[in-house]
């Protein structure tokens, strides 16, 4: 269908789809909702996408993508640049390891494991931020966000699944 450079460009574009869709979903999650209370419930879309894409298409969404997702999250927060990058890289490492055992598990099992991964992420972020600002931070701020992240997981997975089936079907990966 495509030859030489054309085929390479086509593959490059397809490989970029997971990262591009993740960034778009993240931008949507940053839209002002005109409710400060919503800030506590804002789901960590980037985290869900890093977990999903590494689990399902780890060959096209890797550490570099996780780094970019973390970078964007940091730029849209007042915390230190690097904290969310580190968290996304850690999430990527854990997910690559989990992918060996759970890649083909049921949706319920993968969702449950995501709940554990997200819990770990919130706790590590809470600790890092406390070290960074040098004072105690209430954990409940992260807890609401954690609950909403876990609740939003199926919706984001559904969107990512549609994107995956459209642009990165299994046949393409196996080629």
């Amino acid at each position, binding site marked *: 269908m495509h030859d030489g450079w054309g085929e390479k460009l086509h593959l490059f574009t397809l490989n970029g789809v997971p990262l591009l869709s993740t960034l778009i979903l993240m931008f949507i999650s940053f*839209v002002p909702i005109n409710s*400060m209370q919503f800030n506590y419930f804002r789901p960590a879309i980037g985290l869900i996408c890093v977990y999903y894409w590494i689990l399902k298409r780890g060959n096209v969404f890797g550490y570099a993508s996780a780094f970019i997702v973390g970078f964007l999250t940091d*730029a849209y927060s007042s915390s230190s640049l690097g904290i969310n990058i580190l968290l996304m890289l850690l999430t990527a*490492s854990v997910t690559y390891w989990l992918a060996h055992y759970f890649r083909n598990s049921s949706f319920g099992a993968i969702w449950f494991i995501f709940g554990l991964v997200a819990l770990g992420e919130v706790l590590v972020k809470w600790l890092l*931020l406390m070290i960074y600002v040098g004072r105690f931070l209430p954990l409940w701020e992260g807890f609401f966000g954690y609950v909403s992240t876990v609740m939003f997981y199926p919706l984001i997975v559904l969107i990512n699944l549609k994107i995956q089936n459209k642009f990165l079907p299994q046949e393409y990966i196996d080629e």
Partner: protein
Amino acid sequence: MGQRGVFLIKTAELKVWVRRIFVVILFIASFFFILLSKVDSVVIEAANKAVLDVTGPVMQIVEYPSRIIHRIYTYIYDISHIYIENCELRAENKQMMMLQNKVRALEVENQLLGRLLNYVPPAEASFISAKIIAESGDNFTHILLVYIGDEAVKKGQIVLGDESVIGRIDEVSGHYARVILVTDINSKIPVVVERTRARAILSGDNTMLPQLIFLRSSADVQEGDIVVTSGVGGMFPAGLPIGFVNSVQNGEITVETLADISRIEYVRIVDYGLSNNDADLTSEFDEGK
């Protein structure tokens, strides 16, 4: 196995090693960024600016539909409450007319007294209005991203919403600026309690109600007291309203902002011509005491 086979195996092994080294570099880079952020490096500032410059236009496009939906909702809400609001406004208008007459008389008196004392008034503040296009990227921070266009905005400038302070400019990048809200954990503003002139620092703690800290234990503070900027540190001018004391419990004093930050769509970025924008507020406050 031929030479070509050996070459392919070696290349595959090399690729694995390159990938591993790349991952290690990414981890080191993240640690490096955290350390640099702590010392407020220009590298970090440039990196943040670059991201905001690139993503700002995308964010503007993404937030546009939500803004329209919000306007439709607000329009319907306002229509349904128009009668009650009209009655309230009429009553308020009567009071305002009386106050206006008093203010005019006071203004004339003030000018006369000023002339008698050869008083030189401070320079007029200039301001620009900016549209909010994005909110915090995570649950532990309270920031806004605003579109400032071609206007000259500097780091540290004060941000008002509904005539009271809601935050300060943290980062300026091209046409966009990041605002740290008074509720954010990184926000610390020198303030005074208007009634008693008791000095304190208004410290954000990521809740909707920032706290008054470094307040003398003997200070008289009551619920409802208005909290205004003290001007200590030279970052904000004195006397700008921020909020009122919401609760005084077990030595913990919380403040509710006068502006309803949730309903703000546009903010005002004010330039009072103060140069000491990056002052270490806490230390200067301590020295000032």
